[in-house]
């Protein structure tokens, strides 16, 4: 470490003693394991990932052109509206995009009913909206009354539309449907028509790979690795380092403590 008083130098990467060399080796090993475990794995995810569409996206793509041109069959319209509801039900969808999806669902749903039913449907949607708004400030009896109104209105909407859209009354789509509608159908604007495919792609195509599709203890493997295994590794690395460096100091240093 030193030859005389003017030669005191310390550099982790240029050790001059056995303790220094061993110390460097331990530190470099620990940091390497740490870096590879954290960033190496995430890099692997980037390398292996492929944009993978959900089935809903494939369905949407197959019917969208016909829906857009107004030539879609009943089944294609059903597939279209179900695809939009599937995206609408995702909690990560931003408010402005939800609005466009609502336009799409509303236009498709109102297109499935007669003019007289449209008026009734519009009334149901309005009632539902008002009940939801009032619910936040209601208490006790008023709250229970509003809950009853909500329940009955949802049921009425589902009875009117479920069969026409081709969804089961107990399905997730049926639960979501009453909340996906506007009280009036203004049709799809040009901006809506341009935005809808982009929204569908954004929310229905995901970065997947063998690491994300493999299950481990119920987790997608990459999730388990990052949220669970890495933390265990960190604690172990610290523990191992602590004991190894302690042993090293005891062996080579006189005043290690």
């Amino acid at each position, binding site marked *: 470490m030193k030859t005389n008083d003017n030669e*005191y130098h310390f550099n*982790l990467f240029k050790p001059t003693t056995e303790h220094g060399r061993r110390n460097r080796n331990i530190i470099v090993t620990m940091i390497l394991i740490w870096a590879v475990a*954290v960033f190496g794995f*995430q890099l692997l995810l980037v390398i292996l990932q492929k944009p993978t569409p959900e089935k809903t996206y494939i369905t949407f793509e197959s019917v969208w052109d016909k829906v857009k041109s107004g030539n879609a069959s009943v089944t294609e319209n059903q597939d279209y509206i179900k695809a939009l509801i599937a995206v609408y039900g*995702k909690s990560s969808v931003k408010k402005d995009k939800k609005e466009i999806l609502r336009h799409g669902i509303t236009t498709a749903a109102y297109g499935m009913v007669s003019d007289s039913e449209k008026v009734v449907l519009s009334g149901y949607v309005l009632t539902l909206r008002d009940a939801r708004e009032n619910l936040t400030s209601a208490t006790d009896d008023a709250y229970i009354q509003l809950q009853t109104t909500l329940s009955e209105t949802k049921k009425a909407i589902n009875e009117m539309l479920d069969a026409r859209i081709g969804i089961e009354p107990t399905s997730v789509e049926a*639960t979501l449907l009453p909340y996906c509608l506007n009280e009036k159908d203004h049709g799809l604007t040009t901006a809506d028509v341009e935005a809808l495919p982009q929204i569908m792609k954004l929310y229905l*195509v995901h*970065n997947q790979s063998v690491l994300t599709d493999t299950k481990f203890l119920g987790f997608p493997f990459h999730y388990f690795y990052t949220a669970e295994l890495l933390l265990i590794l960190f604690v172990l690395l*610290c523990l191992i380092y*602590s004991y190894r460096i302690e042993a090293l100091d005891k062996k080579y240093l006189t005043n290690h403590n």
Partner: protein
Amino acid sequence: MKKIFLTLSILSFPILVNAASLTQLEGSFKVEPAIILIAMLVTFVAVGVIHRAKDTTDYYAAGRKISVVSSGMAIASNWMSAASFLGMAGMMYGFGYNGLAYVVGWTGGYVLLMVLMAGQIRKYGKFTAPDFIGDRYYSQGLRGAAAVFTILISFAYCVGQFGGVGLMFKWILGINYTWSVIIGGSVVILYTMLSGMIGATKNMVIQYMIIIVAFLIPTFILTYKFDYFWLLPQFGYGTIVSDIVTGIPAPNMADGVALLNAYGQNVALTASPEFAMPWDPATGSTAFQWFAICFSLMVGTAGLPHVLQRFYVTPTIRDARLSCVWGLFFISLLYWSAPIYSVFGKLLSSNPEVGNLASDAIVVYTAQLGDVNPLIVGLLAAGAISAAFSTISGLLVAGSSAFSHDIYVKIINPKASPKMQLNVARIGLVFMGVIVSSVALMNLGMIAQLVSVAFSMAACTIFPLFLLGIWWSGSNRAGGTAGMTVGILISLFSLTYFIVEKSGGALPGQEFVGYWLNVWYFAWIGAPLAIITNIVVSLLTKPTPIEIRKFLVEKVHN
């Protein structure tokens, strides 16, 4: 999908009982949580008063009387802030897999801290981060700059904490956010001022207990109630993640049971792979951001003054290292559990009737939606406040210590008596607390994001000085000054763009800077640049004085 414990018929009763409770998800006074909170605060203040600092050694370093496990708990408590308790689950709830960058960043940094800092800091034998920097770089200027940045870092860190305190006080007391921040802030300032770090350390052990118990109990209850593997919820929630990815195709009506939240709303979840898939476009996040956030948080962890300061309080170097191991283990207990709240939150709030929930309060909302006993939800909220308090007290001590010890005594008035020094620290603490409260009222971002600003600042300024100061005797005053200057400039550059954007304005290249040098993670480039600058300038200028090199060789590495 698993079998659920509540039948529709059984649920009709709680719906009526809880008829008014839906409106209480936020906004109205909650008796049980309020009682728990008040009892907790009284305990904190009492412990702080009983163990109050008697002199400057007590104030700064708790008299170095703390055991390894207690010190580990204090490290964990000091660390587990509102960002850990509330913000992390909130980030995962809002940003899915990208939220895990915070989990990994905030734990992985401890490996760096352990391997590169803990033992050596204790060997160096200084009280504060600016003390170390001023001494190692034989520069009053750098000491002052480090002290100012220690205060700024503590300040930035505190803003998020005060935000968390405000949210929870608002939830419990049913008062508005402004009054919540004012009341919560006043209490934490009062008790930190009375106690200093010795009181804070004693409190931190108690706070850790409260934090971890409060956080873990609901995870067992939720996994048990919803029939997931409840004996070890930290592993049992994996199935829920997969359920969210594949969706819950229909409310499960088999055997007359359905998956319902506390308000009888069935769970209606369409397939949501974006919740778990890496850097999903739907979350608006990219792989680069994951890497940048993770790296910045890790490096920042090893450069945070109030974290580094914890290693001065251990009796020996061995204790410093073991405290770090214990600290990380205690921290990990909470970090393994935080995703449970985000996944249950996603599940239980999926019904459109629930509406949009504030991500930063999702921990408490999840427990409510899961129909956890109000007393336990109250304890959870009190735990969140405890988490924020323990961190705030450590930050205020670090900030006021920097002001009193490193600016006032070392630069302004070297002849100050210990009593005067203590008073200056207390005045600095109150001043800082008041300013932080004012900024917290502006609601500038999510808790975890606000806190990550402090990490990037620490990573760009303090971390390079410690890293090179400990491991390379060639790093000298000129190198340290140049490196620090680069770190400060990058920090100010990013902060300026952030402030302008928040003010509704735009500077040239706003979008570019907003992405590549974002205020939440600018350290990905700032820290390496500061280190390289330090090395280059040190090599080109006058070597480190012999006495510093001798001290490093003989005392720190021998």
